[in-house]
């Protein structure tokens, strides 16, 4: 499903050259749940953005669902993201001045669906994430847990095969983190491939995790 082959990523600034990833190879099968762990700056987010097609590797290949994402150009990479990937950001990145419903509908706008289909999809994921009662509230008025549920709903609304989550529990207390893990479990049961970057130890000994990948300074340890 997801294959990284000898991937390197370096950022070149005027002053220095940062090797964010060095020779990473990994293999994720469809429906697996993979945890990326490692200290801050070890390259977890970088791997996720490569898989989402948001950036390109310096060398090496990224293949997702048989497509070479690393060579995909606009607007195909956007199209690919829309079809396959749901992203949950570290700080949720909801648009604060939009309502819950409008935030969740964002990934559907470029699809230009009929109003009914769009409405139905949004309703479904709001139901699933237990946020229906807030559908017209502005996101900046939501609590942290509610914001997180909106972020999950938004990642699910385009029915992606792969969910990418970057430190999804960093701003949550233990109870909410527990809830998030349960949601992830439900998603895994329905066949979604999960990639979660985290240094939250709650994730490290979960039974449904298939692979744990530890990174240090851009190198894979295990």
């Amino acid at each position: 499903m997801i294959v990284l082959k000898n991937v390197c990523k370096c950022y070149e600034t005027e002053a220095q050259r940062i090797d964010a990833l060095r020779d990473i190879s990994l293999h994720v099968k469809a429906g697996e749940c993979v945890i990326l762990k490692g200290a801050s700056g070890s390259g977890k987010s970088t791997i996720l953005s490569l898989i989402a097609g948001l950036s390109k590797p310096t060398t090496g290949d990224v293949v997702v669902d048989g497509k070479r994402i690393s060579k995909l150009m606009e607007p195909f990479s956007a199209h690919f993201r829309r079809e396959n990937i749901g992203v949950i950001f570290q700080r949720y990145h909801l648009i604060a001045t939009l309502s819950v419903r409008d935030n969740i509908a964002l990934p559907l706008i470029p699809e230009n669906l009929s109003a009914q289909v769009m409405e139905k999809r949004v309703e479904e994921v709001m139901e699933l994430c237990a946020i229906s009662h807030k559908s017209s509230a502005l996101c900046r008025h939501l609590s942290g847990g509610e914001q997180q549920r909106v972020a999950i709903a938004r990642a699910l609304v385009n029915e992606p095969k792969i969910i990418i989550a970057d430190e999804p529990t960093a701003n949550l207390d233990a109870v909410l983190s527990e809830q998030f893990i349960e949601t992830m479990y439900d998603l895994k049961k329905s066949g979604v491939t999960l990639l979660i970057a985290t240094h939250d130890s709650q994730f490290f000994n979960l039974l449904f995790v298939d692979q744990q990948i530890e990174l240090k300074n851009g190198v894979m340890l295990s």
Partner: protein
Amino acid sequence: MKFNLYLLEFALFSLIRKGAKTLFVFLILTFLIFLLASVLFISDAIKHELNVSVAHLPELTLQRLQAGKQVNVPLKRVEPLLEIEGVASVIPRVWGYYYFKVAGVNFSVVGIDAFEQSYKESLQKVVDAYDVKALEKESGMIVGAGVKKILEENYYQDFFNFVTADGKWKRMHIMGSFNADISLQANDMILLPKKSAYEIFGMPENEATDVVVKVSNPEEIPTIVSKINQLYPDMRVVTKEDIRVSYQNIFDYKSGFFLSLFVVSAFTFFMIIYDKLSGLSSEEKREIGILKALGWSMDDILKERFYESFILCFGAFLLALALSMAYVFFWEAPLLRSLFVGYSTLKPSFELPFYFNMPMIVLLFLLSVPVYIGSVMIPSWRAAMLDADEVLR
């Protein structure tokens, strides 16, 4: 591809979301475009009016000079002038200014004659509408709209007492008024029978103020001018072209001021544009990053940006255009007009003729709308080009 209404909706909504900022940009744009449009409208209307009035001028006006001053022309010169080949008609004019002390205003008093053709078509139309013989009998006069207004303000509803050159009262009855299509000059004009004009000015009846010569073929003007000079060396011949040039000079001088106003507002506009071009706020960049990560293509993002800026700028353009039209043609451009119309040295107000110049509006459009849209699109395009991995970190 089907038109994506959701994108348009999102654009509209995001304008509303940005509230105060949108309003601020909208007001600034509206004000600047309004200023530019008003200046262009006024200068255009006046230019147009000058062209029209010059077009109606007689080809040749003859003045008699004595010791460098303009003096009256003896009427016995009319016959010899008529005999010059190529001259179609010779019309002696009796006219002058009458100073109305109470209002501090100069009126142009023009003598008219039942048997004589007027030297100007527009004037002829006014004269034709009245019975000049009856005017003569009842000491009547016809006044321009501006004159009528001023007289009414001073309680002269249906007559006016002129003070003649020898200090006597001369009562003239207002028999009618006119709005000639060439409002620039007609506004301060009083038409009355020649006899009365002679009396008011204290002029001998065998003289005229000046003489207007009509020519059948404009090509012959140079030869006719030289023949007139030979015949009467003390006469100065003013051609239509001379008048046009002197009008133009005054106008150009006045419009210099407006040009600088124009430049200042254009400059301000470009400053705003420059400021916008120099970068997006991090908030805006973040939003573009989020949308990209959620599967929007660059195309979608740029389209949305285009709708947003187009709605804002085109709305401002239309509003400014409507406002400036109302300001210039309906309210007669208070403040700005006094700077512009000052050249006419006449106090009686004149109306700015409505003159809709399409190429000018197109120019105004091109100067504002695409420039603004570009200033929004270019930085957005730059931001959308970058990898959006910053939102994932």
